[in-house]
C-alpha cells in the first residue's frame, strides 16, 4: 500500500514536471505579454511549438560528432532523473534515500556540461563563445547552489534533500533564521542564472553579443531543437520546484497517503504558477546585466551563500 503511494508519487513528479514545464513557460510568457500590453500567444504555445518541431526532419551540421547528437537526450534524461529524486510532491518515496543534494546538483551540472560540449562540437564561433560563457556562469552557480542548501542541511544534520524538507516542515523556525533568509536570496539568484533568465541571460534574444544559452544551441533544428527547448523548460520547472520545496515546504506529503499526495499536487501547481507569475512580472521591470557584470552578481550571491553557511554553523548550530 505505502509502496504503491511512493511509486505513484515518483511517477507523478516526473509526469507533472514533464507535462507542466512547457505550460509553465507558456504561462510566464503570457503574464509577460499581458503586462506589456500584448495579447500573448496563449499558455499552450510551447506545446504547439514542440509538436511542430518534432514533425520536422532531423538535420545535423556537417562534421559534428557524438557530443552534438547525444547532448539533447542527455539534457532531458538528467533533468528527468533529478525530477524523480527531488521531493516535489512527497518526501516519502522509494528513491528518497538516494536524493542526496550532491547527486541532484551534479545531475544538473551534467546537463549543462553536455550542452556546452555540443556547442564546442559544432566548431562555429557562436557555439564556442556560448559554451565558454555558460561555463563561466556555471563555475560560480554550482558552488552557490551547493552552499545555500548546505546552510539548510546543517540544522538537519544531513545532505539528503527529503530529510531537509521534512525537518523544515516540522520546524519552520529554521527558515526564518538569518541563515534561511540569506540562503533563499542566494539560491534565487543562482536559479535565475542557471536557467538563463533576465538579469543574467535573455531567453528570447538572438542578439549575438549578449546571448549565452541561445548561442550554444544555435545549430540545433527539428526534433533535437524540440528536446533542447524541452530540456531548458524542464530545468526551469525543476529548479523553481526545488526552490519552493526548500523554502516553502508546506503542503508536501511527508507520509504515504493518497489524500496527502493529492493536496501536495494541487499546492505544488499553485506554488509554481505563483512563482512563475512573480518571476515574469519581475522580468518586465528588470534590465539584463552587462555580461562583464554577471560575475559580480554571481560572486555576490556566492558570498550570501557563504554567509548563510557561516551563520547557520556558528550562530545557532554549534551549541
Amino acid at each position, binding site marked *: 500500500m505505502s509502496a504503491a503511494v511512493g511509486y505513484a508519487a515518483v511517477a507523478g513528479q516526473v509526469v507533472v514536471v514533464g507535462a507542466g514545464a512547457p505550460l509553465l513557460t507558456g504561462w510566464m510568457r503570457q503574464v509577460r505579454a499581458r503586462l506589456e500590453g500584448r495579447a500573448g500567444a496563449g499558455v499552450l504555445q510551447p506545446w504547439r511549438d514542440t509538436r511542430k518541431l518534432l514533425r520536422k526532419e532531423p538535420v545535423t551540421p556537417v562534421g559534428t560528432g557524438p557530443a552534438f547528437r547525444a547532448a539533447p537526450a542527455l539534457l532531458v534524461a538528467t533533468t528527468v532523473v533529478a525530477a524523480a529524486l527531488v521531493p516535489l510532491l512527497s518526501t516519502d518515496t522509494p528513491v528518497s534515500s538516494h536524493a542526496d543534494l550532491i547527486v541532484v546538483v551534479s545531475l544538473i551540472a551534467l546537463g549543462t556540461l553536455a550542452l556546452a560540449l555540443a556547442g564546442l562540437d559544432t566548431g562555429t564561433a557562436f557555439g564556442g563563445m556560448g559554451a565558454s560563457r555558460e561555463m563561466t556562469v556555471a563555475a560560480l552557480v554550482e558552488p552557490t547552489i551547493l552552499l545555500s542548501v548546505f546552510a539548510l542541511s546543517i540544522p538537519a544534520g544531513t545532505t539528503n534533500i527529503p530529510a531537509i524538507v521534512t525537518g523544515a516542515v516540522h520546524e519552520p523556525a529554521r527558515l526564518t533564521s*538569518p541563515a534561511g533568509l540569506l540562503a533563499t536570496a542566494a539560491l534565487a539568484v543562482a536559479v535565475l542564472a542557471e536557467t538563463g533568465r533576465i538579469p543574467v541571460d535573455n531567453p528570447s534574444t538572438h542578439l549575438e553579443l549578449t546571448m549565452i544559452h541561445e548561442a550554444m544551441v544555435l545549430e540545433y533544428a527539428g526534433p533535437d531543437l524540440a528536446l533542447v527547448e524541452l530540456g531548458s523548460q524542464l530545468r526551469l520547472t525543476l529548479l523553481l520546484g526545488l526552490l519552493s520545496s526548500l523554502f516553502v515546504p508546506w503542503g508536501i506529503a511527508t507520509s504515504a497517503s493518497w489524500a496527502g499526495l493529492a493536496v501536495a499536487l494541487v499546492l505544488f501547481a499553485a506554488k509554481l504558477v505563483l512563482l512563475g507569475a512573480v518571476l515574469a512580472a519581475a522580468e518586465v521591470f528588470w534590465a539584463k546585466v552587462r555580461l562583464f557584470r554577471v560575475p559580480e552578481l554571481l560572486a555576490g550571491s556566492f558570498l550570501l551563500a557563504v554567509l548563510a553557511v557561516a*551563520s547557520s554553523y556558528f550562530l545557532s548550530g554549534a551549541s
Partner: protein
Amino acid sequence: MTGGLFTQLLDLACGAFLLAAVVVLWRRELAAIVRYFALQGVALAALAVLLGSHEARWDLVGVGLGIGVLRAGVLPYLMRRALSALSADGVHSEEVRETQPLVNVAASLLTAALLTLLAYAVARPLTELDPTPATRALPVGLAVVLIGFFVLVTRRRALAQVVGFLLLDNGITATAFLATSGVPLIVELGVSFDVLLAVLVLQILTARMRVAFGTTDIDDLRELHD
C-alpha cells in the same frame, strides 16, 4: 523577553549588520554606500538595545539609542552633505561613483567571504570561553572590522574611505558590545565624539582636496604639488 526570541532577534540584528557591510562593498554609487552605512547604524543600535533590555541594564539601552542617533542619523547626514557639495557643480559626475576600485568588485566580494571565514576561525577560542548567544555572534563584529579595513585599503574616493573607517569603528563597537556587554558610558561617549570629530575633519579635508586638485581620488595625492 524569552531566551529563544532574544536569540532570534540578536541573530537577525547581527545578520543585518554583516549584510550591510557586504552591500557597501558591492555597490558603486557613493549615495547608496552612505545609505547602507546608515542601515548598519540602525542594526548596531538594535543590537545594543537588545543586549541592554535582555540584561535589564538601562544605561546600555541609552547608549544604544545614542549610537543609533549618531551612526544612523548624524554621520550619514554629514556625508550626504559632503556628497551633494561634490556633485553640485555637475562637472565631476565621476566623483559620486567609486568607478575603479583597486580590487574589482567580484574579487572583493570573494575576499569578503574569506575575511568572514577568517573572523570565524579567529574568534573560535574566544567563543568557547563562554558560549552564550552574544559571544557566539562575536565573529560578526570581527568580520565587519576586517571588511572595513578592506574597504579602507582598496577604495579610491575619499568618501568611500571615510565609510571604510566608520565600518571599522562600527565593527569595534559591535565586538565590544557582544564580548563584554558594552563598555562604560564615559568611554563610549569619548569614542563617539572622536568619530564625529574625525568625520567632520575628513569632510573639510575632502572639500579642500577637491578645491586643490579637482578630484577626491586619493591616488592623486602621491605626488607633491606646489
